[in-house]
C-alpha cells in the first residue's frame, strides 16, 4: 500500500465479504468493485488511480493494439542468484514476459506507438529487454512517423542485471534523441509509482508529461527516503511535482 496514511486506518475492522468491496489505498474510502471498474479504476472520493496491469491499461486506452517485439526475453546476464526463479514466477503471476509491453495502437483516429509498463513484473524494473523494446518502439515510430506514448510504472533499474541495466537509461535516452530529431511527439504518462532509473531517463523526457493524481514520482524510492529521512512520502506525489514545475 503506497499511500496508507497514519491515522486514517479505521480502528474497528469492518466485516466485508471478500471481493465485493475495496478500500481506497489513498483516502480509505470504501468502493464497490463494479462501480470502480465503471469509473475506470479511479477512486470517487479522492481521484486516486488504482494500479491496473499493462493489459488493462491498453484495453482502456487503445481501440486497437498489435503487440510487437514480444519475442525477446530476459536472460540472467550476470548469473545473479535467484534471478532465473524470480523471472519465472513473475512471468506466471503477471502474465507478461517483461516489465513493458510495446506495440502499435489506435486511439480513435490516431495511430500511435505505445509502450505500457507492468509493475507486477519485478516491480516494473528496467532490464535489457525493456531497453531494447523501447528502442525498437522508437525506431518503429520514426519509420512510420507515429507519435510515441509510454506509460511508466517502475521501481527503477533492475539490480539483477547490474551495470547493463543502468546502461538502459542511456540506451533509451539516446533513442529519444532520434525521435526528437525526427520532430515526432512523445507523451510520457507516469503512473503510481514511477521512480529512480526510469524517472531519471525516458519517463522524464516527454514533450508532454502526464501523471496520475496521487502517484508517487521521484528519483529516490519511497522506502529509501523513508528510511533515510522519515518524512511523509506524499511530498513526492504528483501535486508537488506540478507545484515545483517539474
Amino acid at each position, binding site marked *: 500500500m503506497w499511500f496508507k496514511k497514519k491515522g486514517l486506518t479505521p480502528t474497528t475492522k469492518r466485516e466485508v465479504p471478500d471481493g465485493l468491496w475495496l478500500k481506497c489505498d489513498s483516502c480509505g474510502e470504501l468502493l464497490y468493485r463494479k462501480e470502480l471498474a465503471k469509473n475506470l479504476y479511479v477512486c470517487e472520493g479522492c481521484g486516486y488511480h488504482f494500479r491496473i496491469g499493462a493489459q488493462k491499461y491498453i484495453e482502456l486506452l487503445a481501440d486497437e493494439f498489435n503487440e510487437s517485439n514480444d*519475442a*525477446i*526475453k*530476459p*536472460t540472467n*546476464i*550476470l548469473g*545473479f*542468484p535467484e534471478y532465473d526463479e524470480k523471472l519465472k514466477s513473475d512471468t506466471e503471476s503477471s502474465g507478461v514476459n517483461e516489465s513493458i509491453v510495446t506495440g502499435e495502437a489506435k486511439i480513435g483516429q490516431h495511430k500511435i506507438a505505445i509502450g505500457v509498463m507492468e509493475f507486477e513484473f519485478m516491480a516494473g524494473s528496467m532490464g*535489457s*529487454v525493456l*531497453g*531494447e523494446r523501447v*528502442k525498437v518502439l522508437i525506431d518503429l515510430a520514426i519509420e512510420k512517423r507515429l507519435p510515441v506514448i509510454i506509460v511508466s510504472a517502475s521501481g527503477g*533499474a*533492475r*539490480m539483477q*542485471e*547490474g*551495470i*547493463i*541495466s*543502468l*546502461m*538502459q*537509461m*542511456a*540506451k533509451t*535516452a*539516446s*533513442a*529519444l*534523441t*532520434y525521435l526528437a530529431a525526427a520532430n515526432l511527439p512523445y507523451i510520457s504518462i507516469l503512473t503510481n509509482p514511477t*521512480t*529512480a*532509473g526510469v*524517472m*531519471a*531517463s*525516458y*519517463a*522524464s*523526457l516527454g514533450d508532454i508529461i502526464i501523471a496520475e493524481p496521487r502517484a508517487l514520482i*521521484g*528519483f*529516490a524510492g519511497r522506502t*529509501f*527516503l523513508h528510511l*533515510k*529521512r522519515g*518524512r511523509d512520502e506524499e*511530498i*513526492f506525489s504528483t501535486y*508537488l511535482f506540478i507545484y*515545483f514545475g*517539474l
Partner: protein
Amino acid sequence: MTPVWLEFERPIIELEQKIDELKIIAQDEKLDVEGEIKQLETKIVHLSNEIYSNLTPWQRVQLARHPNRPYTSDYIKLILTDFIELNGDRCFRNDPSIIAGMGKIDGKSIVFIGQEKGRTTKEKIYRNFGMPHPEGYRKALRIMEMGEKFGKPIVALIDTPGAYPGIGAEERGQAQAIAKNIMAMCTLKTPIIVIVIGEGGSGGALGIGVGDIVLMQEYAFYSVISPEGCASILWKDSKKAEEAAKSLRLTTQDLLEFKVIDGIIPEPKGGAHRNFSEAANMLKQAILTQLNCFSSIELNTLVEKRIKKFQSMGMYKV
C-alpha cells in the same frame, strides 16, 4: 592527510614499516643491513602480488572508497595547468560536489568536469560527500555545452556514491536533471572522455557518464546500486554487502567484458592512494592517448558512433 589502512593492506604496510625502522637503526649504529632489507623487499613484492592478484570484489569496492584515494581536485592539481573553475548552474546555486571548469593538459585546452568527495570532515560536508544535487548536474551540462560551443573536448571524472536522494534534490528535479544530462550528452558535438576514478554510483554517475570513450582506473567500480543497497533490498540485510558485491559484477574486468567500458587505466602498485603522482601520470597518459585519437574524427560521425554504442548495450534471449 592521516593514512588509513584497509585490513588486507596491513601485512604489506607492516613490512614496509619494518624496513624503515631497519634503515634508521642502520644509520644510527652504522650496521650493514642491506641484505636484510633486500630480503624484506622481495617479500613485499611477493606478498603484494599475491594479495592484489586475488582481490575479491568487495576488497576492490573498499579500495575504490579508500579515504586516502586521490580525488578530482588532486588530479586537477597534478595533471592540469591554468585550470579555471566555473561555478553555478545560473538557476539556483553552485553545487560543490561537482567541480567544473577549463584547463590545459599538455598544452591542449579541455573542459574538465569531476565529482569531488572532499578530504577533511569539513570539506566532506561542503562537498556533500560527492553526492551531487540537481544544480550540480545542470552546472556540469552548462559547462559541457560551452565545450561544444568552443570546440573543446570534455573529460569527466566520476567518483560518487550516487546522486543525493534528499527532499530538496527531489523538489528541484533530480530525476529530470539526470535524464536531461544523459540525453544531452548523447548529442554533444565534441569528444567526451569519461573516467571512473573511484566509486561509480548508479544514475548519479551516469549523469555525467555518457561518453565516446569510457575508461576506469584499475581499482574503481561502477554499479547500478551500492552493494549495501542491493543487499538490503534483496536480502533485507546490508551486512551481506560482500556477497552482493560479488553478484553485481562491478569490477573493471567484468565491465570490460560486458563492453560497458572501453579500457582500464593501470594504477600504481597497491592502488592510486599509494602514489598520487604516479597515478596522476598514468591517468594523464590515458587521457592524452584518447585525445589524440579524436583529433581527426568528424563530429557528426562521432555523435552517431556514441549513440550507436549505447544503443547496442543489453543482452537478451531472442
